[in-house]
């Protein structure tokens, strides 16, 4: 009897022992969590659980043990840089706003995350809204502000709901409002909902939108830290930047600045998407190589396909080729490679991705999101789109590449805001690293990746065809002729090149060329 219980126990032990430890699974083991410290371990709608994990302790410290100038000094010394894209020194921003005169001062959190494939900010708010609230309150204390806004896009209903709930809880506990934690500090935060215009993530457009004006960028004659929202001193930081603040204040600037590279400290959250085995939200030390991120944490490319490029920084970023995979990820290195850190979207592309098509996609995106104020951005992106469409249809001319380059430089020079000045980046970076692919399209009228519909044809390889008829049954356009025990034939003038036959044929009997 006793023996049988023993053996059951041992069996159970053996069973649990074979489950790998989280740290030995690269997806989790290679990550270091600061901004995402509470992901998966607290209920985002319970302020008590946040408090149980050191929540609001940094604010308590900031109100009792530190002077506002000390908070600014800590952030300065931590070398925290803005996580929204530009990488501006957060401490310098805070110091400038703290010094500026004018009442009231404002703290704005930019949660207008709009890059395709990026969802870091949404995830932080959904998992740990109080970390952002606490970071904003600390900023308020540091610069002498009493009002904060979170500018969040309407497309994030759950994040907005969770944030709204968190704000109510914080108010109920007196962690927002008058005399927070028995101090002389009063601060409250309000949600401003964006209507989903990409350009409203740009600082001056975002401010205009909060003010109730059309969300268009304006020239930056003044620093926003001196004349920002309603011409008052304003600090605008991204969600992830604010989420980093409480741990820095609690554990000290040196703790934070000991991590990362010389000019990029701490960690960065990335959303790893595209042709990658482990799609996911990751936080890694600054300086981790792209190769480690993609092949270790991300688990490489699915279906044994070859890696082609990784796109970082959203529509403002660029495509980085395989030869640069050992580059360490920080603000400077990514810029050198013709891309940028951006907010942290990372789109992995495999051999089946056409780089002309990728460039076209991003230009199309910026073209439809351009606010139209600057002719260079509005019509420049239109012209670029025309050229790229022409190339992908096999109607490209030899001089198109030079024209694209000239246009890119003109748009960069003449546009007012970041959307315009960075929109040519996807074109410039693909031209820089994948020029031969453009030339294939233009000179040989071929799309090497087999993506551009006008340049490919699908045919049946007779030697591989098993006469099963699967392609015939699946063709939505009735463009395939087949009878039992006969080889299928694709009628080219009816074929819409959807590629379904290519996907469903298990015998590699459909050729895409």
């Amino acid at each position, binding site marked *: 009897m006793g023996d049988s219980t023993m053996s059951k126990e041992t069996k159970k032990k053996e069973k649990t022992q074979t489950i790998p*430890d989280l740290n030995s699974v690269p997806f*989790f083991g290679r990550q270091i*969590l600061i901004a995402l*410290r509470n992901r*998966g371990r607290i209920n985002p709608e319970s302020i008590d659980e946040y*408090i*149980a994990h050191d929540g609001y302790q940094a604010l308590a410290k900031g109100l009792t043990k530190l002077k506002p100038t000390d908070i600014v000094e800590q952030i300065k010394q931590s070398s925290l840089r803005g996580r929204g894209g530009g990488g501006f020194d957060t401490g310098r921003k805070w110091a400038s706003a703290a010094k500026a005169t004018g009442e009231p001062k404002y703290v704005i959190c930019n949660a207008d995350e709009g890059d395709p494939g990026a969802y870091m900010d949404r995830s932080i708010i959904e998992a740990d809204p109080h970390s952002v609230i606490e970071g904003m309150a600390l900023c308020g204390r540091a610069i002498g502000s009493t009002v904060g806004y979170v500018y969040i896009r309407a497309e994030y209903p759950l994040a907005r709901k969770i944030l709204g709930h968190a704000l109510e809880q914080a108010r109920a506990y007196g962690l927002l409002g008058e005399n927070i*934690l028995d101090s002389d500090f009063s601060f409250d935060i309000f949600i401003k909902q964006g209507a989903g215009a990409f350009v409203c993530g740009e600082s001056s457009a975002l401010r205009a939108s909060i003010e109730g004006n059309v969300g268009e960028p304006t020239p930056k004659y003044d620093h926003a830290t001196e004349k920002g929202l309603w011409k008052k001193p304003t600090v605008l930081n991204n969600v992830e930047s604010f989420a980093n603040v409480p741990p820095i204040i609690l554990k000290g600037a040196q703790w934070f600045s000991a991590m990362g590279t010389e000019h990029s400290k701490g960690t960065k959250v990335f959303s790893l998407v595209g042709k990658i085995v482990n799609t996911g939200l990751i936080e890694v030390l600054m300086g981790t190589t792209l190769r480690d991120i993609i092949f270790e944490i991300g688990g490489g490319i699915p279906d044994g396909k070859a890696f082609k490029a990784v796109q970082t920084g959203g529509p403002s970023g660029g495509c980085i080729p395989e030869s640069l995979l050992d580059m360490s990820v920080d603000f400077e290195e990514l810029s050198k490679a013709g891309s940028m850190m951006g907010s942290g979207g990372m789109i992995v592309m495999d051999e089946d991705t056409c780089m002309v098509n990728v460039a076209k996609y991003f230009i199309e995106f910026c073209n439809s999101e351009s606010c139209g104020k600057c002719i260079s951005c509005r019509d420049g992106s239109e012209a670029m789109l025309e050229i790229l469409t022409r190339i992908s249809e096999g109607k490209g001319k030899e001089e198109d590449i030079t024209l694209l380059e000239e246009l890119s430089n003109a748009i960069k020079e003449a546009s007012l805001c970041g959307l315009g000045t960075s929109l040519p980046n996807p074109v410039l970076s693909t031209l820089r690293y994948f020029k031969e692919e453009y030339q294939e399209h233009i000179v040989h009228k071929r799309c090497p990746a087999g993506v551009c519909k006008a340049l490919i044809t699908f045919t049946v390889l007779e030697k591989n065809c098993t006469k099963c008829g699967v392609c015939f049954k699946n063709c939505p356009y009735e463009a395939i002729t087949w009878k039992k025990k006969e080889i299928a034939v694709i009628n080219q003038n009816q074929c819409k090149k959807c590629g379904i036959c290519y996907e469903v044929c298990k015998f590699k009997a459909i050729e895409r060329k």
Partner: protein
Amino acid sequence: MAALSIKDLTAIAKKTKESMQISAQGPHTKITVHMGTCGIAAGAQKVMDSFKEVLEIVDKKDVILTYSGCAGLCSNEPMVTIERYGEKPIKYINITPKIAREIMKQHVQKGNPLKEYIIAKGYENIV
């Protein structure tokens, strides 16, 4: 609710830690369904409902059922973390309501983790 003082913060932290704590006396298991937008899109709500249904039948005192934001591995959602007293938390991936019921039966009630749905056990690197 009156505004908190710093002392109150510490008290809330202590009380919450205790109430969320699993122990030998019970509750002995904590189930966390990861319910970010991504998880819900992949079916986490149905998984949650399925745990709730089973908990209607079995002894609720023994189990804390809660939820959190996204656990990070989007490609394998819905994800669930099960932590039993004295054991490291175990992360399950690609959970369906059916698997959730099985987890309740085998892992939560009998202590036999369902290895085929588990990615790993342990804690993340929080610095």
